C-alpha cells in the first residue's frame, strides 16, 4: 500500500511535545497550502539541525560552531559559570541581558525515580573545566526549584565547595511587576521563605 505523505507528516508532527493530533493536522495542512519554497526551507532547516548541531565541548550547550558563541566570546567573564539543566534555559537567561559569565548545561537533573544518576548528567565535565585559565571562582546553580533540581544543586555544591570555589543558588520569588495579590500561593510562600535584609 502506498504511503500517504500527508498522513505521514501528521504522524511525525504529532510526536512533538505539546502537539496533539488536531494541531498536527492543522500544521500539516498549513504547510501544504504555503508555497513549496517554505516547505523546502523548513526541511532544510530540520536537516541542518540534525547534521550541524552538536554539544559545545566546554559548556555542553547545543551549537553549530566549536566552541559555541558564548564560550568563544572574549568579552564574557570567564570566572563565573551558570549551571542550567536544559540547553534552552540559556536563551532565557541571555534574554535578561544581566548575565555576562559562561554557562554549563547538565542536560538533566538527578532523578533516582527516573533512573538519572550523576553519570547521566554532565557534572564530571563541569568539575573538569573549573580549574581552567583563568580558574572559575563562582558557580551559580540555576536548576529548577523542584525536589530533583534542588537535590542536584546540593549535589554540585558538595562537589565544588571543597575546591574552594563559591557556589550560589538563584533566588525564586515574585515575578517583576507582579502584583503580590496575583502571585500563586506557593511562589509567594517561597518568596517569603527566601526573604533577605534590605
Amino acid at each position, binding site marked *: 500500500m502506498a504511503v500517504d505523505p500527508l498522513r505521514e507528516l501528521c504522524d511525525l508532527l504529532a510526536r512533538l511535545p505539546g502537539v496533539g493530533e488536531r494541531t498536527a493536522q492543522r500544521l500539516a495542512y498549513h504547510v501544504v497550502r504555503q508555497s513549496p519554497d517554505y516547505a523546502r526551507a523548513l526541511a532544510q532547516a530540520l536537516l541542518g539541525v540534525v547534521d550541524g548541531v552538536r554539544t559545545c565541548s566546554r559548556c555542553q550547550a547545543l551549537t553549530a560552531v566549536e566552541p559555541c558563541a558564548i564560550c568563544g566570546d572574549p568579552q564574557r567573564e570567564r570566572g563565573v559559570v551558570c549551571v542550567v539543566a536544559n540547553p534552552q534555559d540559556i536563551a532565557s537567561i541571555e534574554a535578561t541581558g544581566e548575565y555576562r559569565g559562561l554557562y554549563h548545561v547538565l542536560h538533566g537533573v*538527578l*532523578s*533516582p*525515580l527516573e533512573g538519572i*544518576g*550523576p553519570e547521566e548528567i554532565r557534572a564530571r565535565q563541569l568539575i573538569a573545566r573549573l580549574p581552567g585559565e583563568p580558574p572559575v571562582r563562582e558557580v551559580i546553580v540555576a536548576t529548577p526549584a523542584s*525536589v*530533583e533540581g*534542588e*537535590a*542536584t544543586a*546540593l*549535589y554540585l555544591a*558538595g*562537589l565544588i565547595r571543597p575546591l574552594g570555589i563559591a557556589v550560589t543558588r538563584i533566588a525564586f520569588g515574585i515575578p517583576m511587576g507582579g502584583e503580590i495579590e496575583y502571585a*500563586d*500561593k*506557593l511562589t509567594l*510562600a*517561597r518568596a517569603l521563605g527566601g526573604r533577605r535584609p534590605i
Partner: protein
Amino acid sequence: MLAQTLTLTDFRNVERAGVELAPRLTFLVGDNAQGKTNALEALAYALTLKPLRPARLGDLVRRGASTAVVDVSLTGPALPWQIHVEVEAGGRQVLVNGKLLRDPANLLGAVALVAFTPDDLALVKGAPELRRRSLDRFVFQVQPGHLRHARDYQRALRARNLLLRRLDRDRRSLDAFGEMLAIAGARLMAGRHLGISLLRPALTRRHRQLAPDGGELTIDYRPALAGEEAAAGLDESAASERLRQALQEALPLDLARRQTCRGPHLDDVELALDGVPTRRFASQGQSRSIVLALRLAEADELRRARGEGPLLLADDLLAELDDGRASALLTTLDAIGARVVATGTRLPPGLSAATAGCAIYSVRAGRLSRAN
C-alpha cells in the same frame, strides 16, 4: 468560597444528577447502597481531587461509561468559580474556570472542607499513617504551602530509598537527597506543629460538650525524631539541623535496611483521654465522640482562619446517634456556620420539607430527586 451546585455524570452508580446546595443543610436520604455517598464523594473529589474512600480512578466511572464528570460551581467575595473534573481509568483532567489546572494546590484552598465518614473511626485505634494524613489535610487548608512540603518530602524520600537499594551506594547523591529530606521534613514538621497547636484547645472544648463525663481529650504531636525539644517545637532551621543529624547517625542502619528509618514519615499524633492514649482502650462509642470532636474542632479553626463556615461533608451523619444527640449536633453545626451536606437512612429529627435553608434529596438506585 461557597459551593453552590453539584452536577455529576456517570460517577459511580449515578448516571446523571444535579444537587443545589442549601445554605445550611443539604440532606441526602435513602436506603443503603442507593448512591447517597457517591454524590457526597463526587463533591469531595471535585474539591480535593482525592476520593473519600480509597479507590482507583476507574472505580469512580460508572460501569458501561468511559468518563465520569463532576461540575461544581462556587461563589465567593469576588468572581464565581466553575470546577470541571473528568475522570477516566487512565487519568483525570481538571478545568477551573475553563483553564487546565496545573497545580492542585491552587484548587485545594478554594473551599474550606471538613469530611466526616464512618471510616474515620479507625483514626482512634488505627495506624499512625491515618492520623498523619488527617492532620496534614487540615494543615493544607490553613497553610497551603504545607501541601508542597509534604509532596517534596515524599518525593525526596522515595528517591533516597531507591538510592539506598542500589548497589553503588553513591554517598554524594544520598547526601543531596538526605539534605532535601532535612529541609522539606523540617517544614512538614513545622506545619504539623501549627496544626496541632490550632486544634488542641478547640478539640478539648468540643469533646467536653459532646461527652461531658467522657474525660478530658487531648491531642499531641509525637514526632518520630525522639527528644523532648522536637516535641515542644523547634524553629525550622533547628529542626532541619536535627533531622540532618538523625539521618547522618542512622545512615548505617538505613544502608542495612535499605530504607530511611528516621523522619516525619514516621510521626504520630496522639489522642489521649485523661492522659491515657486512646489507641489502647477506646470503645466504639468513645471513638465516635473523639472523631466528631476532632472534626468539629477543625471546623471551628477553619471558620476562624477563613472568616466563613466550612463545607462539612458528613457520610451517615446520624448513625448511632439518638434523636437528642442528633439535634444537638445539628444545632452546633449551625452555630459554627458550617454548610452541611450529609447522608443518612432517615431524616434527622426536626428536619422537614419546610425547614428554612435546607434541601432534602431522596436517593434511589442512583437517582436523586428533590423532596422539597
